[in-house]
Structures are given as structure tokens and as C-alpha cells.
């Protein structure tokens, strides 16, 4: 399994990478950690004429707090997300999600930017960035623009990134007190990808009422989505196990096109989306309650 031959560039700065991308256009593929692109190239499902390796742009590898949000450079690995004390304290949903990605070796190489830009329908981060209302920053020769997670995922393996754009940063909120988060996942046993992955973020207000809640689902449909009906069924109500179970039943709206493959039929995925949404909500609630005390 050897990739087709390609021309290789290893820019050291974002500016240089953007110039290369402009010059080579659609003939070029961007390489970050390589854990989505290289397997495709080895299977010859992708055979770009030119590969631009972003791995030398060290300026895109950071996790820092800025203006009440946490900014994560696109080249930050899953292991770095998992181990970040800043994220663990202020936005634990991302480390909780990174913990469920692949295995140690994959987490050591794979990057948050690469994973999001690839937009695999069974990837884990999409559920979390949706539940967090994350911002995704894209740079081009004309400057930068900020996309909301909800508008970023367009379709299977397709994002709102334009030709000539490079995903440079993900920004997530510092979660307010009384917030609990969780990512629960049904693993495909061979690949470790999500058959269903549910990310939940829940903030308790006065009297144990759900002040704010967000649920992101991955693996279920061609693109990850927010389970808006679940959120609506919870918001403003007093949290209880029964309420969460009731709400989770709305995890898959009518208009969602369900994925189906030999690992999981559409019907099974739908049933598991409900189960894992409920489990993620239960964990998030328990964590929110323990922080309240």
C-alpha cells in the first residue's frame, strides 16, 4: 500500500502555505497529522498531484485563553487536547471527546484541524464543536473569516471551507459554573470510529432547572448535527432522569438521512442515537450537579 507519487512542499509559515495552496489549487491536498489523508492516499482513493505538509508550521500548535474563549491551533494533536490542563478545567468536553478518538498512536499524530477539515461523518470532534457552538477560523490570502460550527459541516466529507482557505484555529467557550459535559460513543469495534457519538453540554440554573443545553450527534447522518428537538424538550424544565430519557427520544429528527452500513443499519443507528444521547445527557447532568454543590 504505497501512495501515488506527488510533489511535496513543507512550508514553515502560514503565509507560505497559503501561497502554495493558491499556486497549486485543486491539485493540492493539505497534510496535517496525516491520519485521514494518508490512509486515503495509500488506498489510492486520493492521489493529489501535490501535498502541502502543514506539520512544520509550529505557530499553528497552541492552546490558549483569549477574550473569554479558548483558542486551539489547528495542528494541536488529540493527545495535546486530551492532556491540556486549561481545557480540562474550562472546557472539558473537548478532552472528553479526544479521549474517545482512535487509540494512543492515532491521538499522538491526528490533529483537531485535520479532523474537522476532513469532516468524516463518523469522526468524534464534530459532535463536540457543535455542542460547544465553537468558532472555526479559516485563513486565505484575503485574510481570515470565522465560521460557526453549525455552518461548517456541509455534507459527508464536505465543509464550508473555500478553495484557497486553510483552517487555522478552533475557538471554544469557557464553560460557565453549573455546567456539565459528556461525550458518549458507540465504537465500531475494528476501526474505533463512531457508529454513534453524542456530545452533551448542560448548564443548570436556579431550582435545578435546565438553563441551557446543547447536544451534537455524529456517526448518525452524512454530517454531524445539533439535536435541536432534544434541546427544546429540556430547556427551562427541572432536570430529572425521566425528563432526559423523554427528551433523548427526539435525537433523530424526521428529516435526517440516516447512514447505514454493514456495521449498523439505519434502524439500529437511530435506536443507538437515542440511547447514547440519553447517556451523554445523564453524565452531563451528574457533572453539572456535582459542580453546583
Amino acid at each position, binding site marked *: 500500500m504505497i501512495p501515488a507519487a506527488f510533489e511535496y512542499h513543507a512550508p514553515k509559515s502560514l503565509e507560505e502555505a497559503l501561497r502554495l495552496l493558491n499556486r497549486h489549487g485543486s491539485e493540492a491536498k493539505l497534510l496535517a497529522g496525516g491520519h485521514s489523508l494518508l490512509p486515503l492516499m495509500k488506498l489510492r482513493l486520493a492521489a493529489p498531484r501535490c501535498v502541502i505538509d502543514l506539520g512544520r508550521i509550529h505557530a499553528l500548535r497552541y492552546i490558549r485563553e483569549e477574550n473569554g474563549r479558548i483558542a486551539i491551533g489547528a495542528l494541536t494533536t488529540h493527545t495535546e487536547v486530551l492532556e491540556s490542563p486549561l481545557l480540562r478545567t474550562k472546557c472539558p468536553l473537548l478532552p472528553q471527546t479526544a479521549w474517545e478518538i482512535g*487509540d494512543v498512536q492515532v491521538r499522538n499524530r491526528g490533529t483537531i484541524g485535520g479532523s474537522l477539515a476532513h469532516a468524516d461523518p463518523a469522526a468524534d470532534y464534530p459532535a463536540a464543536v457543535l455542542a460547544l457552538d465553537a468558532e472555526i477560523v479559516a485563513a486565505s490570502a484575503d485574510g481570515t473569516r470565522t465560521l460557526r460550527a453549525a455552518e461548517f459541516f456541509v455534507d459527508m466529507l464536505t465543509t464550508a471551507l473555500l478553495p484557497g482557505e486553510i483552517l487555522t484555529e478552533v475557538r471554544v467557550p469557557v464553560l460557565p459554573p453549573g455546567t456539565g459535559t459528556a461525550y458518549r460513543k458507540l465504537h465500531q469495534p475494528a476501526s474505533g470510529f463512531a457508529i454513534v457519538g453524542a456530545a452533551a453540554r448542560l448548564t443548570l440554573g436556579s431550582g435545578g432547572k435546565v438553563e441551557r443545553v446543547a447536544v451534537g450527534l455524529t456517526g448518525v447522518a452524512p454530517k454531524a448535527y445539533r439535536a435541536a428537538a432534544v434541546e427544546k424538550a429540556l430547556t427551562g424544565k427541572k432536570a430529572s432522569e425521566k425528563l432526559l430519557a423523554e427528551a433523548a427520544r427526539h435525537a433523530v429528527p424526521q428529516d435526517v438521512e440516516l447512514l447505514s452500513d454493514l456495521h449498523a443499519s439505519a434502524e439500529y443507528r437511530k435506536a443507538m442515537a437515542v440511547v447514547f444521547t440519553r447517556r451523554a445527557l445523564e453524565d452531563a447532568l451528574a457533572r453539572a450537579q456535582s459542580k453546583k454543590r
Partner: protein
Amino acid sequence: MGVVIQVRVNGKTRQHEVEPRLLFVHYLRDVLGLTGTHIGCETSLCGACTVLLNGKAVKSCTLLAVQADGAEVVTIEGLAALGGNGGLHPVQEGFWEKHGLQCGYCTPGMILAAVELLQANPKPKEEEIRRALAGNLCRCTGYQHIVDAVQFAAKKMAAGKR
């Protein structure tokens, strides 16, 4: 068009001109002759090709040789030197003592993944060992003896530090 890379492998600086599409596992095996790193599934699942890249366990079948330019690499051939006692590394010794292998195909990758674990977590619980080795498949042992081997190594390394 070749690209010149320089990699420090098992403490020795190596420099070669390579084709960009050359996978790092092929660089190790075919260019450097270090055939202790095995090729298993070639799809980043089995972990047989695991090496340490700047101290981190990575699957060398999912890494281009050009991406490793400038890196510090340890393969199974260089591991004994890390043990620091002139003999086998404690993890290697654990696999020997606790029958952590049968056919041996997964062993180099298993051992290097275990080394990364013990560097970060010198006293892992059984569950932590199993999770750290989740990216390494073994079709012979049923894993129990591998877990025993890592526990043996952890004890041995802790004793060595006293």
C-alpha cells in the same frame, strides 16, 4: 524528485534522499535495514509498526518519511540502550519472563507502546495498560500475558529507581 531528510534513529544520525511518498516504515526497513519494525495491517489499525517518534508512540505505516525529518526515533533495535543496564529493556524482559508473546509479530509494536505508557504513567492500573495498548492487536496471547509483562516491567523499573 527526492527530498533530503535527516533523522536520528536509535541515537544515530541518518541522512538520505527519499521519494516523498515513501512511508516511514519502509524507510526503516528497506533503507536502514531495521526490520524489527513489522508491517501488519498497513491501515493504521494493528500497531505492529509502532515506533517512538520524539518519545511518542506512532504508527510508522501512517507517516511519511519526509514528515519524520528532524525527528528522534526509537525502534525495537534501539530500545535496549534506553533500559540503561546494558541488557534488555525492562519491558522486553517482562515479555520474556511473562510469556508476553507467542508468534512475536506484534511484539515490537506492543513493547514500544508499553514503553510510552510507562514513561508517562510508571504505575499503571490493569485497565490503563489495556487502554494504552488498544492500538496494538495480538492474535496469539489473548492479551493477559502482555498485561502481565507490562506490570512486571513497571515493578522492575520502579525498583530500579530506588
